[in-house]
């Protein structure tokens, strides 16, 4: 066997992976931002692994028991994932005709498997190794690290290969069934969804076996005694180097042998199965007539509007070529798992089914027709652009079609939740919210699908040759709309207190408007301005700016929460950490936009100030303090109420030390980061669409509104006064930026102004 050739094939496939999944800077930018937003989750996982390690070091035998019980199930999940993705590369690789005719089969099989294993290791095992490391640190054992990584690596590779073998065997069997290719594909999709749901249902049943849902004590989860599946003893190898390791027992050795043997057996099976799929006769027994269906064409009838015509066209094509929408299987699996989660409890089952249908409705409203408008039109896009029909018609039609699919699902689902025990008024609220979210979901999907168009023909669950939406678009859309639905429902139905409720519903409302309308505008421009520069759209620029501020707020909270929760600091160091962490979140949003939009750092306007800039800075500072003096005057003379910034309470609680720290943070962190975001990005982006002075005003408005949460506890008049002051201050700093064309003077102006206020507080507290 020629090892060099195997490596060359693997390298070529890996290159194709990188090209496909990370080529676009927009994708990389979004992934990085998602990592920032989900930092608390990552931290939580790491902390959990670390605590687990500590428990193991303390001799907590429950960990061993749990691991032995649940390892086989987790392994089964990996096998299922492997089976699902078996054809992704092995039946769809680059330069297929060349490699099939020029390379020995064995080398080709190995090359492709190496490529698959590499991406598997990078994608799943990599993060797992980090968790094992946290576990080993908690256990205080370097041996545990090495043993854990080796044992986990072997297990996942064995599961992947077994899964691939199972998946290929299923495909070979499916080919033996005399069906038309399209029926077979539908069967494959349905089978996949069904398999996933059955696995989930079995998991739920096993989990509930012998245990009340209310009593999830350890005894119920993993009763003492031997695990139900002997393979569970493999878990012992993950505990080598800790007090829980029981030594080299026959059971542990046996399970290791099974896992280790699975590798060559699976490779052998794959090697036998693949050629029969590669060299199979492509003209499978096709029932007569499928290729020559006659008389299927119909006239279009009467459509009152052209939107109606396009909607009719979408549905007609969807019905006739359903496999182009095979990616719907992913949604079905996720919501189906929600349903089977309640399979052991009939009452919960109805409620869960209702909830799942509602979620499915919200998702499919965008997920079906929205996620790849450009790629789906393909070559027809030219014709649409050159037709007499406005671009907005095509986008609106996809929204209408999405709502037609999603709204009934939401309605039926809501009805079921009420049957399942949700109070009717609550049901009405949930239904209304989620119905309102269906067009939002559709428009958001269209925007995301235009931003991340899927243009490469590919396969979904390797059933159908189609142009599926980009994974990034699918995940981002499902995540955002799912979050809106869940947060909205929590805000409506639970009783989180008035403040939290207003915050939740406000966030959902503002987010939905920004994402929905912004997505709509972006999608329309994608068709209208196809092949040329996008026409400036001030409303979109404003929505983008506000959206970035909102995402910044979320990222800031995430990073600050993660920093506080997972780093052992308290008091002033903890305060500084949380503070800097929050601003790191804002900075991450700035970096994401500048990088992702391809505008580049130069665009921000970072320039060392010259003498002229310093003069503008002086004027800006004088104006800032003038605004402050006017506010103080109005408050003392007229008795205007004013809201206290939440940092004011921190200073009051922390004393002069905190005030002094805040002076430094204002100049070094607050000024630079806020000015980069609100002036460098928001105002600059607005100025591409409206006159500079309007951009200054609008950016100042966004800047002030972004501060709403820090004043949230005060009365409405006081909040208005405080925000009004911020609008004026934002305009002053926006003027400094516009005048100098550089963020630096504006950052200095903002930082010195804030610093001065804290300086005064410091002096007052002394």
């Amino acid at each position, binding site marked *: 066997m020629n090892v060099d050739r195997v490596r060359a094939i693997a390298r070529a496939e890996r290159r194709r992976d990188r090209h496909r999944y990370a080529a676009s800077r927009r994708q990389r930018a979004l992934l990085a931002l998602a990592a920032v937003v989900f930092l608390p989750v990552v931290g939580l996982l790491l902390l959990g692994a670390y605590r687990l390690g500590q428990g193991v070091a303390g001799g907590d035998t429950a960990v061993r028991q749990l691991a032995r019980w649940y390892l086989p199930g987790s392994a089964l999940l990996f096998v299922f994932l492997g089976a699902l993705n078996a054809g992704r590369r092995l039946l769809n690789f680059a330069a297929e005709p060349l490699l099939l005719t020029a390379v020995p089969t064995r080398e080709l099989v190995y090359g492709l498997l190496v490529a698959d294993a590499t991406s598997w290791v990078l994608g799943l095992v990599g993060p797992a190794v980090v968790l094992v490391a946290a576990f080993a640190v908690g256990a205080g054992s370097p041996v545990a690290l090495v043993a854990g990584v080796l044992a986990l690596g072997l297990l996942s590779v064995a599961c992947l290969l077994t899964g691939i073998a199972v998946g290929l065997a299923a495909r070979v069997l499916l080919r033996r069934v005399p069906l038309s290719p399209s029926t077979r594909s539908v069967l494959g999709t349905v089978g996949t969804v069904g398999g996933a749901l059955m696995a989930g249902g079995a998991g739920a049943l096993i989990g509930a076996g012998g245990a009340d849902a209310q009593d999830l004590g350890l005894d119920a989860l993993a009763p003492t005694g031997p695990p139900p599946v002997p393979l569970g003893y493999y878990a012992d190898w993950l505990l080598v180097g800790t007090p829980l390791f029981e030594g080299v027992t026959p059971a542990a050795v046996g399970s290791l042998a099974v896992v280790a043997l699975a590798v060559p057996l699976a490779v052998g099976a794959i090697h036998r199965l693949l050629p029969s799929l590669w060299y199979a006769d492509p003209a499978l027994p096709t029932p007569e007539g499928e*290729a*020559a*269906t*006659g*008389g*299927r*064409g*119909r*006239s*279009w009838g009467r*459509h009152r509007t*052209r939107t109606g*015509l*396009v909607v009719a*066209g979408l549905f*007609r*094509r*969807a019905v*006739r*070529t359903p496999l*182009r929408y095979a990616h719907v299987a992913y949604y079905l699996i996720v919501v189906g798992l929600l349903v089977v989660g309640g399979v052991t409890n009939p009452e919960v089952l109805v409620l869960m089914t209702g909830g799942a249908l509602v979620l499915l409705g919200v998702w499919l409203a965008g997920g079906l027709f929205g996620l790849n408008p450009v790629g789906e039109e*393909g*070559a*027809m*896009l*030219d*014709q*649409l*652009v*050159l*037709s*007499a*029909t406005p671009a907005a018609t095509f986008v609106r039609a996809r929204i209408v079609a999405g709502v037609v699919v999603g709204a009934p699902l939401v309605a039926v689902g809501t009805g079921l939740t009420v049957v399942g025990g949700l109070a009717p008024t609550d049901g009405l609220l949930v239904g209304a919210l989620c119905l309102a979210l269906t067009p939002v979901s559709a428009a958001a999907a269209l925007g995301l699908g235009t931003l991340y168009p899927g243009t490469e023909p590919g396969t979904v669950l390797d059933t159908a040759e189609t142009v599926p939406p980009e994974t990034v678009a699918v995940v981002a859309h499902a995540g955002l709309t799912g979050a809106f639905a869940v947060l909205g429902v929590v805000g409506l139905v639970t009783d989180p207190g008035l403040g939290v409720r207003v915050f939740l519903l406000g966030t959902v409302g503002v987010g939905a408007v920004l994402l929905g309308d912004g997505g709509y505008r972006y999608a329309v421009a994608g068709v209208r301005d*196809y*092949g*040329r*520069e996008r026409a400036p759209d001030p409303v979109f620029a404003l929505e983008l700016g506000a959206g970035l501020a909102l995402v910044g707020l979320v990222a800031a909270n995430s990073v600050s929460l993660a920093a506080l929760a997972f780093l052992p600091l308290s008091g002033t160091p903890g305060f500084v950490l949380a503070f800097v962490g929050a601003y790191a979140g804002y900075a991450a949003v700035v970096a994401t936009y500048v990088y992702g939009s391809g505008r580049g750092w130069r665009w921000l306007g970072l320039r060392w100030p010259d003498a002229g800039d310093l003069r503008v800075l002086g004027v800006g500072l004088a104006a800032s303090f003038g605004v402050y003096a006017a506010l103080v005057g109005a408050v003392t003379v007229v008795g205007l109420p004013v809201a206290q910034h939440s940092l004011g309470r921190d200073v009051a609680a922390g004393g002069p030390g905190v005030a002094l720290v805040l002076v430094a943070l204002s100049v070094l962190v607050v000024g630079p980061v806020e000015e980069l975001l609100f002036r460098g990005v928001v105002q600059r982006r607005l100025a591409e669409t409206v006159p500079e002075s309007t951009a200054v005003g609008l950016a100042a408005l966004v800047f002030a509104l972004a501060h709403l949460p820090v004043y949230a506890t005060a009365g409405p008049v006081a909040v208005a006064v405080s925000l009004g002051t911020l609008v004026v201050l934002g305009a002053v700093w926006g003027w400094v930026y516009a005048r100098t064309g550089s963020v630096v003077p504006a950052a200095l102006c903002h930082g010195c102004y804030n610093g001065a206020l804290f300086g005064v507080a410091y002096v007052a507290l002394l």
Partner: protein
Amino acid sequence: MDDTAIRTTGLTKRYGDVVAVEDLDLAVPSGSVYGFLGPNGAGKTTTIEMLTTLLVPTSGTATVAGHDVADRDAVKPHVGYLPDEPPLYDGFSAREQLAYVAELHGLDPDAVADRIETLLGRVGLTDDADRLVDTYSQGMRQKVGLVQAVLHDPAVVFLDEPTNGLDPRAAREVVDLIDGLAAEGTTVFLSTHILSVVEEIADTVGVLHDGHLVAEGAVESLRRRAADGSERTLEQAFLEITDGEAIPAAEDAPR
């Protein structure tokens, strides 16, 4: 509007340092068939996309049917476009596809039905027009694409390799339809590298090579342009023009 259907002045498209089309000056009279010849990668499709407003020129200007191509809305009612891959929807029959596109063009469904049938008949598709286009051969798709491009009776039609991959009979039907369009006064901008088609129906031929227009004129004059004034085939002329070296005439070539 003057009698020039397509006029370009210094039309240029660059992708970074790569020049796709440079300094192109064209004047295509209304109602004529312009054969746009050139080897693969010469910039033919880039030129067509600029003229149909689908691509923004780096510099230079162009008007189509009297309208600046920078103004997409003004240009689009007057142009039809058949790209090299005929753009059709899987899941539609040919009749559905054509009726759908006709409505997108704002045509009255009843009024256009006859025109669709006439055009389908001229390319020999009447009997197959209710089958889904997914089941069509390349030639049938090409013919539906051509009908689609001329459905709204545009003043100027851009055809990118319309006879690509067609068998002789299908190619004949397509060429006849193009000929008929020209006879009705439609300006046809025909990009191809199949010389016999150009030889048959083009009034004027332009040869594009590496983004430059290296020769232009009537087919006859191109044939006669050999250094010694002797008669050549269009193929010989084409090879000579795009190679920069004289190709010996067939009878002089070493056997």
